[in-house]
Every structure is written in C-alpha cells, then in structure tokens.
C-alpha cells in the first residue's frame, strides 16, 4: 500500500518533468537529427540560457513566485548592449561594458519592480507580467525616440535613417561569441564554451553562498511565511525588494550572455519572451512556484531545448510542415507553464484538504487513534 502510495506521489510530484521527458524522447526519432548534433546544441544552449534561468531562483526562495518581471532586467541588458555597439567596444570588454552600463538601469528597474510587487502580495506573477508590458512601453520610447535625439548616438550605422531611434535588428558582431570563444574546449566532436560555464558556475556558487547568509536566511523565512518572518523581526518588504533587485541584475547579465551567443538582437522584441522561456525551463526542470533548486535549472534548460531543437524536424516529418514544430514550441512553452500552475494549485488544495481532515479527526486521525489504543 505504502509502496503504491509513494510511487503515485513521485509521479504526481514530477508529472511535468516526466511528461516532458516522454514527449521529448518520442520526438527525437522523427526529427531525423543525429544525437551528436542534439548534444552540441544542448551544450551551446546550456551556456546561453542557464544564467537567465538561474536569475529566477532568489525570488522563488523569497516566496515571490516566478519572476516574470525579469524582462525588465533583459531590457536593461539590451540597453547596455546598444551602448556597447554605439561606442564600438569589442569582445569581452564589450560585454563587461554593457553589464556595467546597464547596472544602474537594472538596479532602478529592480527597485521599481520590488516596490510594485510588494503592493501586490500574493499576485506577484501576474503583476510582474503586466509590469513588464508597462516598462516595455518606456523602453520602446527611449530606444525608438530618445536615442539619437536626446541621447547622442555616435554610431550612425545603428540609427534609423530618419536620424533618431535604433534599427529593428542590431548586428552584435563586436561581441558575438566573445565569451563562448574565450576558453573553447574541444571534447571529441563537441566544443564546450568553458568561460560561459565558469560564469554560470560562479553564479551557482554565489547562490549557494547567499542562501547561507543572514539575508539569504531572511529570504527563506519570508518565503516560508511572511507573517511569521515579520513577527520575528525580518524586514519583509525590504527583503523582497532585494530579492527582486538581485534577480533583475542577474537577468540583465543573463540577457547579455544570451545575446552574445545569438550574435544579433531584435531591438524591440528580443526581451519579450525572455521571462516566458526562462519560467518554462525552470518548471520543466521540476521546480514549482514555491520550490526550486539549481539542478531544476539545468534539467529544465536541457529538456526544454532538446524539444525546441527536435520539434521543427518532428513537425516536418509527422505533419509535413516545419511550421507546426514552430507553433509546437509556443504551445509547449505556454502549456508547461499552465500545467505546472494547475498542478501546483491542485496539489496545494489537496494538501489543505488533507490537513483539514487530520484536524477534524478523519481517516488518518482515526488510524493514529487506533495505533495509540493498542
């Protein structure tokens, strides 16, 4: 009985990851792609996306759910990259310059996001999502109208022909693959971007260390129960704001790493899907709104991207239309988020009912009472 129950519980708890694993494994063969190709793509995409997904961890620890407001950080990162291209800063220096230049912007964005989310406790995810739309309007205004008119642009090649505003697509040749190719390592047929992995590893070490600090412990206390933390003297609002600021700054750096790997930037919509795919990845990795770990990030990035790589090929083979695979990506992304949230809500309700039953002296209470009588 207990074995059955534990298997059932294991399946329930890992329903998203198992479902995704099954779909991914089934899609590999019809895609017609070699395992070597898929492996190399995974190694590249692991470097490209992991930093962004890791940026989601701290707000989850602080009980703020999945930080859809990380898009604000992504916008700040793009702002920094535009400046790096404008001043023609090359290579890794360009990336560092972009990160430094965007730092004040991301700090301010993170603070604004934190303050707004504190006013919407319990509805942080949807608030962050809508806040990203609002800030997107300001970003578009700055990049489309202020750059070149109010903010002087030195590099005329990136300015629209009318004299102000940035072009729709920016070529990031100056910084393209500069971090990935800084320490390339060849392992058989695979090439590993070691420098990018080192940066990601440093962030993992930082997160592990941060969790052990006073602030990290405060964050976990706030995430566990805000009211208890408040009673214990933890400055709840301040702690939550710090969590969001750190997440936003990390998202800024993550977006810069992402963009250097891509090599070009859709100025006005590259950030649109940043939080969406990062959230989908961490959920696919087995995380939930309340609980996430570093392994969840890497499992999620690998699983989500394997499916992204194989889905166009599988769509072509199964339906005779590669675009089906492209739609499939969107469908999978939104589907995973919806499924995870539904499962989380269902699990929470079930847990509450179980606890309530226990308090009323239901089946479990009766069993416990029987045990006590013997």
């Amino acid at each position, binding site marked *: 009985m207990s074995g059955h129950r534990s298997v059932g519980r294991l399946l329930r708890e890992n329903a998203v990851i198992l479902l995704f694993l099954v779909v991914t494994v089934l899609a590999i063969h019809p895609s017609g792609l070699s395992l070597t190709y898929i492996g190399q793509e995974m190694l590249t995409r692991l470097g490209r996306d992991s930093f962004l997904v890791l940026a989601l961890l701290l707000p989850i620890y602080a009980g703020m759910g999945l930080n859809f407001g990380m898009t604000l950080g992504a916008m700040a990162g793009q702002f920094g990259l535009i400046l790096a291209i404008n*001043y*023609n*800063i*090359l*290579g*890794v*220096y*360009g990336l*560092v*310059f972009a990160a*430094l*230049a965007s*730092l004040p912007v991301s700090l301010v964005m993170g603070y604004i996001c934190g303050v707004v989310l504190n006013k919407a406790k319990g509805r942080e995810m949807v608030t962050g999502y809508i806040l990203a739309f609002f800030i997107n309007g300001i970003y578009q205004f700055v990049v*489309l109208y202020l750059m070149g008119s109010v903010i002087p642009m030195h590099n*005329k*090649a990136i300015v*629209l*022909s*009318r004299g102000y*505003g940035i*072009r*729709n*697509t920016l070529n990031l040749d*100056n910084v393209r693959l500069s971090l990935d190719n800084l320490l390339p390592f060849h392992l058989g047929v695979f090439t590993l971007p070691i420098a990018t992995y080192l940066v990601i590893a440093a962030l993992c070490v930082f997160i592990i260390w941060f969790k052990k600090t006073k602030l990290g412990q405060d964050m976990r206390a706030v995430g566990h129960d805000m009211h208890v933390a408040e009673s214990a003297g933890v*400055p709840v609002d*301040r702690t939550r704001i710090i969590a969001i600021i750190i997440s936003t700054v990390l998202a800024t750096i993550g977006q810069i790493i992402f963009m250097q790997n891509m090599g070009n930037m859709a100025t006005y919509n590259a950030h649109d899907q940043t939080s969406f795919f990062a959230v989908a990845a961490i959920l696919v990795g087995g995380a939930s709104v309340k609980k996430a770990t570093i392994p969840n990030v890497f499992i999620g990035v690998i699983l989500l991207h394997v499916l992204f790589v194989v889905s166009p090929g599988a769509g072509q083979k199964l339906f005779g239309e590669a675009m089906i695979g492209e739609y499939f990506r969107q469908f999978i992304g939104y589907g995973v988020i919806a499924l995870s949230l539904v499962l989380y809500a269902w699990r929470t309700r079930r847990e509450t009912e179980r606890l309530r039953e226990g308090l009323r002296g239901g089946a479990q209470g009766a069993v416990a009472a029987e045990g006590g009588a013997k």
Partner: protein
Amino acid sequence: MNGASIDPKVKTRRALVRAVLAVVYLGLIALVFSLGKGHTIILDNKDSDDGSIKALESLTVSVDGQEPIDLSSGDRDMAKVHGQGHQVEITVKDAQKVTHQVHVPLGEDMVLLSLPALLSGAPSSLIPFVPKEIAAPADDQGNNNSFTSPDAPAVPGAPPAPGAPVVP
C-alpha cells in the same frame, strides 16, 4: 531601519563607502571603455600627398600579431584592433622585420597609418580618417507606416511621394 537613530559616524562611513563604490564603478567603466574601444587602422602604402615620401615596392605588415598582410606599392588594407597602444611589425622586401608602437587616440574610430611615413620616422604617419559616406542599409528604414494609402489623392502643392507616378 530608523534613520534618526543611526550614529553619525556610521552615516559618514556609509557615505564614504558609497562614494568609493561610485568612484570604483566609474573607474571600471572608463578602464573597460579604453581597453575595449575598437579602432580600424587603415594600413596605407602610398606616396605622401606632397610626394616627399615614396611608397615601398612591397612589404608585409602585421598589427598586434594578427595575420600578416602583404601590401604592394599603392595598396591599402585595414586591421581592426581594440585599445590604444598597438604593435606594428613591418617587413620590407629582403629586409629585417621592424617593430613600431603606435598610439591611436581614444576618440578616433578610424585612423590612417602611412607605412612609408612610419618607416621614415615622419611625425605625421598616423592621421584620423573619416570615410566619405556611410550608406544606410536599404532594408531597414524604420517605421514606414503611413496614414495614407499610396493611391490617395495628392495634397495640392505637396511634394510627390517617393516612387509615385508623375502626373503631368
């Protein structure tokens, strides 16, 4: 949390730490800017304008250890570099390799390095270079959404729309 209860010494120390952080931040930006700023060096093997320095018949040049470039008399090529100080190695036909240090000004994106002038020791071997015109990419002209359709009646006295048929 209450600002009034903070010791003035702590306040001063905090302000000092913040000021130091701001200076370090600005210093880092300046350092990264100067080290990473990209420049294009046009490597020129032509006669000087006044004809006093003649182009070399053939030479090989390498900037900062990059791939060597062969230049004949009248040739030009370019090297993309970052930072301000650069090592230029020139090998003239059947002669020894000569190494020169050049310093590109921070504000210049493109400079012209006259190799014959550099070899002759002339002071004006490195001069700023401004390309005549940078053509805008034709495929990206910004937001061209217009409020009128192409066949809308023309406003009297208004200039014709680009590509519109000329009405006699």
